[in-house]
């Protein structure tokens, strides 16, 4: 992909964005960048402000402070142009359930102003992306959960957007379907589509995202490539100590005393940063540190 001067405009650029709902500050001074042609994962626990951020990018929520640029357009003033070149996959399935696969796509080809001469082709292409050729005349009602998700993604791509906004794209799906969708999303990135994806699945962000922004309480608490974030915050290796609660508490106290960072995983205590701290590492199962460690360290939240 060639990069002209125009292409250096980031696909998304947020600076000091604040969004309040009454006394609640959902987004609290957020900075976020999505460079053109990359996939950025917006990672955070529930209530961190991910969905509000996604809503602001389509001007369905208006920021109280700060600046938002999408594809070089300033929001909310130029949001309509930005929306014309964006595809949005919502968290909640909002397909027209009484319509067929094909009809849903025809409707969105119109809503996204695909020129009449290209409409037929655009719909066919989207059916191909969703891999629903044989179910084109099936009502959405009759499709499985996985098919409906594929359909939502294909619908967002019917007008060949330059930017794709994915809000929790695989939430509630079984692992096999999730992998299918990851392949689909990865394919879009390979074609040069910029992607912002909010998720609370660590693995999803790790596999798909070039860079990850971790959000907590409405702020970006860390940003970077997954590998860099892991190295910076959790070190290279970790040890998992298993045992009854009393043993876990003891191991935790000792590790902290020796200058390690730890986190509870529910059934074990993970002792992090083995290569960074000087103390003696406790015995246990050694493993590579991962993004989940970073996530929990930075957000203070356990994840399921």
């Amino acid at each position, binding site marked *: *992909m*060639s*990069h*002209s001067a*125009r*292409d250096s405009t980031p696909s998304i650029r947020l600076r000091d964005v604040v969004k309040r*709902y009454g006394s609640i500050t959902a987004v609290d001074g957020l900075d976020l960048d999505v460079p*053109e*042609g990359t996939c950025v994962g917006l990672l955070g626990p529930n209530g961190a402000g991910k969905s509000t951020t996604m809503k602001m990018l*389509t*001007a*369905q*929520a*208006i920021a109280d402070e700060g600046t938002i640029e999408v*594809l070089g357009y300033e929001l909310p*003033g*130029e949001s*309509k*142009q930005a*929306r*014309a*070149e*964006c595809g*949005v996959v*919502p968290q*909640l*399935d*909002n397909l*027209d*359930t*009484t*319509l067929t696969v094909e*009809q849903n796509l*025809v*409707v*969105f080809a*119109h*809503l*996204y*102003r695909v020129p009449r001469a290209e409409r037929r082709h655009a719909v066919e292409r989207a059916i191909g992306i969703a891999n629903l050729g044989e179910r084109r005349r099936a009502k959405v009602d009759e499709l499985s959960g996985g098919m409906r998700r594929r359909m939502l993604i294909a619908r967002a791509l019917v007008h*060949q957007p*330059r930017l794709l906004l994915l809000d929790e794209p695989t939430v509630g799906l079984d692992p096999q379907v999730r992998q299918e969708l990851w392949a689909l999303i990865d394919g879009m990135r390979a*074609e*040069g*589509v*910029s992607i912002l994806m909010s998720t609370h699945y660590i693995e999803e962000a790790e596999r798909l995202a070039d860079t990850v922004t971790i959000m907590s309480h409405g702020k970006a608490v860390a940003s970077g490539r997954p590998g860099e974030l892991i190295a910076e915050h959790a070190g290279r290796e970790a040890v998992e100590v298993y045992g009854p609660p009393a043993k876990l508490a003891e191991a935790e106290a000792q590790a902290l005393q020796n200058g390690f960072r730890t986190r509870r995983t529910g059934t074990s205590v993970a002792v992090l940063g083995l290569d960074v701290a000087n103390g003696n590492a406790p015995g246990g199962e050694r493993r590579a540190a991962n993004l989940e460690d970073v996530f929990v360290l930075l957000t203070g939240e356990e994840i399921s």
Partner: protein
Amino acid sequence: MSAAARPPRSRRRLGRLERPALVGVLVREVINFSSYWRATTFSSTVEPTIYLLAFGFGFGSLVSEVGGFRYVEFVGTCTVATAVLFSSIFPAMFGTFVKYQFQHTYDAILAAPVDTEELVTGEALWIATRAGVYGCSPLLVAMLFGLDPSWGMLAVPFINFTAGFGWACFGICIAAFLKSIENFNYVTSAVITPLFLVAGTFFPIDRLPEWAQVAAQINPLYHCVELVRHAVFGWEGLTDLAHVGTLVVFGLVAWRVAIAGMTRKLVN
């Protein structure tokens, strides 16, 4: 499909009430309509027939003439206006609420290059068009019962459309300002039922107490009923212009309030 290969985008600021956005909203409705038109057509034909049979013949056997009309003709024309009322206000109230609250359809549409103003306008235009067409079916049924055709009847779809647009916007306002679908019952009982009855529909308003006559004057349904009667039985010049004017003002006010209400609800 490299991003650089795309045509350079224009910096033109997209305007308000754009045709492609309205067309997009309408196309969605038309395609949806293809899946439920049979039910709509059935009810809009059968309902006025029942009204005409019940009131025209049941009640008509007691009262032969009202306000200078045969009772069956009096009721036949009012049924046009009430059909327009019901076929626009209820779909607007319930359809808007369901699409907003349960199906999240409006989230999907507003993520596309469509603004709330265009969404509301497109939805109201569609409902008004449907009401304009289906509102004529009582007239056809009444003709089977002996109503004489007249040239003025050709104006009826347009009267229906104008009134239907106002009612649709009014229904969208209700959906925009009420918090739950259960609360719709209050509106149906306390607002729509009196609107429906105190409008010269089944009995003329000139025998009502004075306060009710005044109230009828601000009821858009009354103006719609009068216009339809005059279209069928003979125009009344300036009076009818005033009726048209009232319906237009009602439509414009309800339209703007509906847009404001939905914007508050959808963009926050």
